[in-house]
C-alpha cells in the first residue's frame, strides 16, 4: 500500500501528560509524527492537537483507532480526503546585504508576508500559508541565504458545509 500524508485533528483533555501519552503511542508502535501543534481551544479544559503523519491507509486506520482508545482523547478527525483549510506560520531569518534588500522586499510583497525584525545584515520575515506557499518562498530565499527558521507546524480545520 502507498504511504500518504494524513492530517489528524485531535481534541484531548487539557491535562499534564496527555501529549506524552500520544507521543508515546506513536513511538511505541513505530508510527511517525511529521509535525505537531498543540494549544488550548475555546474551552480551557480541551486542547486541539494538529498532527501530520505519513502512513498507508491500513496504518492510519490503526493510528486513529489507537488514539481513540486513549482515555484522554475526546475526538479524532481525519482531515485528509475531506475539505479543510490549513495554515502554517514560519519565522525566517534571511541574510540581507544592502544589494539584496530590494529583492527580499519584493518577495515579501509578492508573498504578502511581513518583516518583523531588521538588523545590520538580516531581516526576519513572518510568513503564513499552506505548504505550497511555504515551499515556494523558501526556494526563493535559499539562494539569498537563510540564517535560521522556526515553523509552527500545520494547523487545520474542516470547512463547514455551506
Amino acid at each position, binding site marked *: 500500500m502507498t504511504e500518504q500524508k494524513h492530517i489528524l485533528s485531535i481534541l484531548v*483533555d487539557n491535562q499534564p501528560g496527555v501529549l506524552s501519552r500520544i507521543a*508515546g503511542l506513536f513511538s511505541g508502535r513505530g508510527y511517525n509524527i511529521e509535525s505537531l501543534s498543540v494549544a488550548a481551544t475555546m474551552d480551557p479544559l480541551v486542547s486541539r492537537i494538529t498532527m501530520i503523519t505519513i502512513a498507508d491507509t491500513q496504518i492510519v486506520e490503526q493510528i486513529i483507532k489507537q488514539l481513540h482508545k486513549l482515555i484522554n482523547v475526546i475526538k479524532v478527525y481525519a482531515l485528509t480526503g475531506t475539505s479543510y483549510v490549513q495554515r502554517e506560520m514560519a519565522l525566517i531569518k534571511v541574510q540581507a546585504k544592502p544589494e539584496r534588500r530590494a529583492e527580499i522586499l519584493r518577495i515579501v510583497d509578492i508573498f504578502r508576508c511581513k518583516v518583523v525584525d531588521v538588523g545590520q545584515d538580516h531581516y526576519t520575515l513572518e510568513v503564513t500559508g499552506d505548504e505550497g506557499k511555504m515551499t515556494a518562498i523558501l526556494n526563493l530565499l535559499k539562494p539569498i541565504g537563510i540564517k535560521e527558521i522556526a515553523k509552527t507546524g500545520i494547523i487545520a480545520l474542516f470547512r463547514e458545509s455551506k
Partner: protein
Amino acid sequence: MKLTGAQILMEVLKEEGVDTIFGFPGGVIIDVFDELAKTDIKHILVRHEQGAVHAADGYARASGRVGVCLVTSGPGATNTVTGIATAYMDSIPLVIFTGQVPTQLIGNDAFQEVDIVGITRPCTKHNYLVKRTEDLAGIVKEAFIIAASGRPGPVLIDLPKDVSNTKITYKAPKKINLKSYKPTYNPNMNQLHKAVKLIKNARKPIIFAGGGVVLSGGSKELTELAHKTRIPVTCSLMGLGAFPGTDPLCLGMIGMHGTYRANMSSGDCDLIIAAGVRFDDRVTGKTDTFAPNAKIVHIDIDPTSIRKNIPVAVPVVGDCKITLGYLNRLLDKEALGDLETKRKKWLDQINQWKKTKPLEYKQKNIIKPQYVVEKLYELTKGEAIITTEVGQNQMWAAQYYHFKKPNRFITSGGLGCMGFGLPAAIGAQVAFPNKLVVDIAGDGSIQMNIQEMATAMQYSLPVKVVILNNQYLGMVRQWQELFYEKRYAATGMEHAPDFVKLAEAYGAIGLRATKPEEVEPVLIKGLASPKTVIMDFAVEREECVYPMVPAGAPITEMLLV
C-alpha cells in the same frame, strides 16, 4: 465528615466491593496500610511486588472481579511493572495503588521517588497521579470503571504521601461521567446480517475463540453457536476453556504449538468466525499465508484488534457475549438446512487429520512431561484451576489438560511472563479457598518467584506446584536443538535447589517422582494433601513440544513428533 486521603480510599474500596488486596508496604504508603488494617478488607502480604500483581491477576482471572494491589513508591512501584505488563497484554482488570513521595518533593529525586506514571504509561489502560485529596475518590471510582469495562486492563493510581494523610471534608463523589470513554458493547446489526449470510453459505467454516469470550462471560453463547451451526471450534491459548475441550466439535488450540487438525483446518477453511481474539503472531504464523481461502468475521470489543494483523471481511465491534447472543437469535430465524449432511465432509476431513496426526509423545522408561499433565488431568477430572509458568510447561498444560469451563486456565499468554504461575495460583486460591489450584511449572520459571511459597504458607493456601523438571530452560533449549544445531547456550539449569527440601524449608510438603510408575502415586498423595505441596517430577531432559510451527513459517507447516 473530615477524613484523610487514606480513610477516603478505604471508603471507596468498600463501596467498590473490594474484599482482598495484595500488597507490600513501605515508607510513603504506611498511612494507607494503617487504615487498611482497620477495615474488613483482607490483605495478603506477598514477598515481592511482582508477586502482588500476579496474585491480583490470578484472583481476577479466576473470579472475574477486579484485582487490587497496594505497594510503596520507588522500587515497590518499579517491581510491579512486569506484572502490570502481563495483565495489560492479556486484558485483565486490575487497579494498582503505588505510594509516591509528597507532592512538593515530586521531581526532586527524593528518596524512593520514581515517575511510575511515566514508566507505566505504555503498559496500563490508563493511569493517574493524584495531586489533591479532593480528587482521590473520583479518580478511584473512574479507575475501577476503566479497569473492568470495555476491553479490561490494569489501571495505576499514584498516591503521594500528603494526598493520603491530608484531612478534608469528604463527600461521596457523584456519578462518574467519562465523556470520552464509551466502549461499544452492542454490535451493528447490519454487520451481523452479513455474518449470518456468510455462515449460511460456508462449506468449511471454523470458529476461532479467544480470551475475549472468557472475559465477557460468553462461553454459553459460543457453545450454543457452535452446536446450532455445527461449526468446529478452535481456541487461542487465552481462549482455552471458552469452549469445552471435551466437545466433539473442539479442535483444540491453534497456533505455533496448536493441534494438527486446528492448524490444518485454518489453512483449509472458507470462513473463520473469530471472537475475542487479536490474531497474534503465535496464532497466524506467516500472516500472508494465514487462512488463504477464508473470509473472516471478526468480533471484538476493541476496534484496534480488528484489521491490525489480518484483513477482515466483516468487522464487528462489540462485546463477545452480547454479540454472539444476537448472532444466535438471528440464526434462529434462518433455515440452516440439514447440517449433518452439509458438514459431514468437512468434519470427516477434520477427524481424518485428528486420526492421522493426534497429539502424541513416545512413552519411554523415563517420565514424560506430557504424561504428568495427562495424569493430572485424569486425577482432577479436568476440574482443577490450572495456572502455568511460561515455556514448555505452559504448552504441555495447554495441550494435555482439556478445560471444560472458562476461567480455569490461568496463563501469561501475551507477555509470556516466567514466574507468573505460583503467585497467580495464590491469587486464584484466595478467590476460591475450597477449589483445587495447581501451578504447572518448569524448574526454570518456578525459581523466578519461588519466594511466594512463604506467602502461601502464611495464609495457609494449599496450592499445588507440579514441577516438570528437565534441568533446562526447556523452550529455549528446544529452539537451540531445532534451529541452533544444539548449541545450548545459557539454558542449562543444573544448579537448581532440591525442590523437596526447599518445600520443607518453607514448611510445605515436598514430593518427588523419578520413574514413570511413581507419577500417579505422587500426584494422588500431593493433590489429596490439605497443605501447600511441591511435586518435583524428573522428566525427560530433551523432550520437545510438538507440533511446532517455526517462527515466521505458515501455520500449516508443522514439525511433528
